[in-house]
């Protein structure tokens, strides 16, 4: 029950993601970096720097999800455990793909934190709630980032990742006994 209170409290959630190094949707320094007004080469450099910052925020989110599924797996059984392992593998693919993109842009990919300070989770339901919270945050962050990326290829990649995260949400909602497709326009807002 204590975890459910945490999951429903926006201040607690914000603190949690901030501690994980995640620049969430809605105006971090990294996301605002793309707004600088300049021209020519300087503008390209600004755009590349902004792309790197956005991608590193995304890597932080992916690493948070990886840690959450890793932490939660021992509490899961049967089909849910299989799915969690699959989702974990997919989050790792995202983190690897985004890290490659950062490197190709000349940046340094964000690394996993040495520790993630999750609320104590004791039951399968709490694992699902934690995963659902992180996946929602990921969807919102990717939707926020999408139009700020300068490269069409990166935008397409992010679109395919956010769709995958939305699919995870759908499975998790179903496992929690909630409607799996609650809205025609996925927003990442629970």
């Amino acid at each position: 029950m204590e975890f459910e209170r945490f999951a429903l409290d926006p201040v607690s959630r914000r603190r949690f993601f901030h501690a994980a190094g995640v620049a969430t949707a809605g105006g971090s320094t990294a996301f605002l970096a793309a707004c600088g007004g300049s021209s020519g080469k300087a503008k390209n450099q600004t755009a590349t720097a902004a792309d790197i910052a956005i991608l590193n925020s995304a890597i932080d989110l992916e690493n948070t999800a990886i840690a959450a599924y890793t932490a939660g797996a021992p509490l899961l059984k049967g089909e849910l455990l299989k799915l969690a392992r699959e989702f974990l593998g997919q989050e790792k693919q995202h983190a690897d793909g985004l890290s490659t993109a950062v490197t190709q842009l000349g940046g340094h990919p964000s690394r996993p934190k040495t520790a993630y300070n999750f609320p104590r989770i004791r039951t399968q339901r709490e694992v699902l709630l934690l995963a659902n919270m992180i996946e929602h945050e990921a969807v919102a962050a990717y939707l926020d980032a999408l139009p700020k990326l300068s490269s069409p290829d990166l935008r397409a990649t992010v679109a395919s990742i956010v769709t995958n995260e939305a699919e995870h949400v759908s499975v998790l909602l179903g496992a929690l006994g909630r409607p799996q497709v609650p809205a025609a326009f996925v927003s990442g807002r629970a």
Partner: protein
Amino acid sequence: MRESDRLIIEDGDTDTASIAAYEATRRDAVRRGLAAGGAVIGAALVPALLSVRDAFAAAPQSDAGILASAIRLENTAVAAYAAAVQNGGLTPQFRRTATLFGRQEAEHAAALTVALKSLGGTPPSGTDAKLLAPLKSARTQNQVAQFAIELETMAVAAYYDASRRLQQARLLQTSAQIMSNEGQHLVVLRQALGKDPVPNAYENGKAKASK
């Protein structure tokens, strides 16, 4: 929250080797198990599928052109779900699901229509009859679900292409929100057929829909 109520996960304790082995085994099993499942209607859809996966690519290189193509595809999806719910072989639960999905496709079409009009464009009417044709031969719920999977996969592929080409930020976000919704439709449809609900880490509609 007290410190003792928190669980600290140290970095590096994910067993990647076991995950990779599990993945290989599971994917192989899924591939073998599904080879027969959706084959009949899937084969009938292949030509249409290939043409529509390029639907947005054939659209004029403007936001308005992409929106017009998307509206036509959404209208086709609305018609598909409307026809599907008439199929006598559906369970009440699946019929409710198809009704919901049809309503959400209509919401997409309505929002895209507003966006296109704001750009000064004229929304297209009508549907793609060629795309809808295979649905007439669907007799069972599984065949209807397989058809819907093919259609939703096309939609995901089309929005994926659009995300590369749309210029307006707001349209990019709307496109991704719709693409994500189509992905969630895929989850429910795959589960209805006993398939892996999320087989692709990068859901771009380019993988085989019958995977």
